[in-house]
């Protein structure tokens, strides 16, 4: 795929001196500051309002608005939207949180995991809304912020609950293992622990990025055939449009699945930290 992208980019770059359509499209994958937004730089943190920040707040606002409309005054007999929200809510609650945790832990942790699910799903989804077009979760710093926070929260809770030494002993030393194997097992467990936030962040980021690269590539084909009418238009444009539609539908599915996976793994990590050594 990468060679295809490179070829397309190279061809596009050759065709015109000004920014090629491909470059214009690819710029959708990079956060950029809006013209109207002031530059807010605090040390290493650039807090200026970029399209990523805007869409992230859009997602946050949409989640809150969605629940405000659908669930602020829950009816005994739910209407369509409330029903939909309750179905998703129950799905996350029963199939993710209560599925992994004990009922007592699940009651405590559902709001957190539920927020992770709905927030991530909405961030995945806003990128598919026309004109907004940037997916906050296709940036690794967004996913890393969530993944690292979840992991640190889990580990921190475990250490507070069981004591630092007991927690790490139970976490890094598998039960009933011959002492001979400890020098091998402990490094493996350390790597596995470190891999958790990393894999959590990269999985979500890579999926969302790849999803949008695919969508942009198919749009790119349409730009690449040029403005002079030729036979290529009749062949390329319908096929590209067809794939665009199919992959947009697929992208909605991926947005949902990735949110589920992130929420599910977060639940498992938190549960592992609450009950280490199981």
């Amino acid at each position, binding site marked *: 795929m*990468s*060679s295809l*992208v*490179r070829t397309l*980019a*190279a061809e596009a*770059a050759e065709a015109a001196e000004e*920014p*090629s359509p*491909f*470059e214009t499209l*690819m*710029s959708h*994958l*990079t*956060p950029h500051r809006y013209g109207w937004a002031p530059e*807010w730089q605090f040390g*290493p*943190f*650039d*807090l*200026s309002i*970029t399209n*990523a*920040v805007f869409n*992230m*707040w859009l*997602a*946050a606002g949409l*989640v*809150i608005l969605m*629940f*405000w409309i659908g*669930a*602020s005054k*829950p*009816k*005994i007999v739910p209407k369509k939207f409330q029903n939909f*929200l*309750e179905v998703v*809510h*129950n799905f996350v609650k029963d199939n993710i949180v209560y599925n992994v945790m004990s009922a007592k832990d699940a009651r405590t942790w559902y*709001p*957190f995991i*539920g*927020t*992770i699910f*709905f*927030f991530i799903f909405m961030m995945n989804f806003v990128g598919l809304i026309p004109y907004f077009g940037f997916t*906050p979760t*296709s*940036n690794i*710093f*967004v996913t*890393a*912020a*969530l993944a690292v*926070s979840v992991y640190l929260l889990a580990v921190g809770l475990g250490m507070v609950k069981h004591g630092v030494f007991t927690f790490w002993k139970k976490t890094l030393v598998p039960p009933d293992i011959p002492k001979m194997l400890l020098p091998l097992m402990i490094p493996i467990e350390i790597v596995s622990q470190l891999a958790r936030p990393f894999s959590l962040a990269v999985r979500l*980021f890579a999926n969302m*990025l790849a999803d949008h690269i695919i969508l942009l590539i198919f749009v790119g084909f349409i730009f690449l055939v040029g403005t002079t009418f030729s036979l290529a238009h009749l062949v390329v444009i319908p096929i590209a449009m067809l794939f665009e539609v199919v992959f947009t539908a697929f992208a909605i599915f991926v947005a949902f699945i990735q949110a589920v996976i992130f929420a599910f793994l977060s639940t498992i990590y938190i549960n592992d930290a609450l009950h280490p050594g199981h």
Partner: protein
Amino acid sequence: MIHLLAVAEESEGFNPLSPEMGLYVWTLIAFIVVFAALAKYVFPKLEEGLADRERRIKEDLEKAEATKTEAEKILEDYTRRVSQAREESNKIIEEARQSADQVRKDLIAKSEAEARLILGKAQNQLEAEKDRALSELQTQLAAWSTEIASKIVERELDPATQKELVEKFITEVQKEGSPQ
């Protein structure tokens, strides 16, 4: 990926891994805001709504069950009463039929007796009429026979002889012609 990154470097610096520490901070802030809103206002309300619905459905089901049992009891009672009423009505009809039968029989017997009485009276009357007619006939015959006899013998008979002759004649007539 490396190729992609290389291309990205050329074309206006598309680099998905370029450091965006600001985004990291914004994500945390946005997440905390969403979490606070959902955890404080949304999920408790949603849970409460769901629990409320569960309770209501349970209550309604129990109520429906109780109503059903009661309805069944009422139906059973009703069926029993209907069958009782049917038996009673059958009894009443049977009784009515029997009494009607009795009345009919009585009436028939009474009318038969009356008919017999009327018949008897008629017969008696007939008998009396017959007797009267006979006696009248006897008197008439006596008169006629006297007349006839006097004409035959062409002589006057004294009343004593006349009476004797008439009675003798009558007796003879009775002997010869009387059916009884």
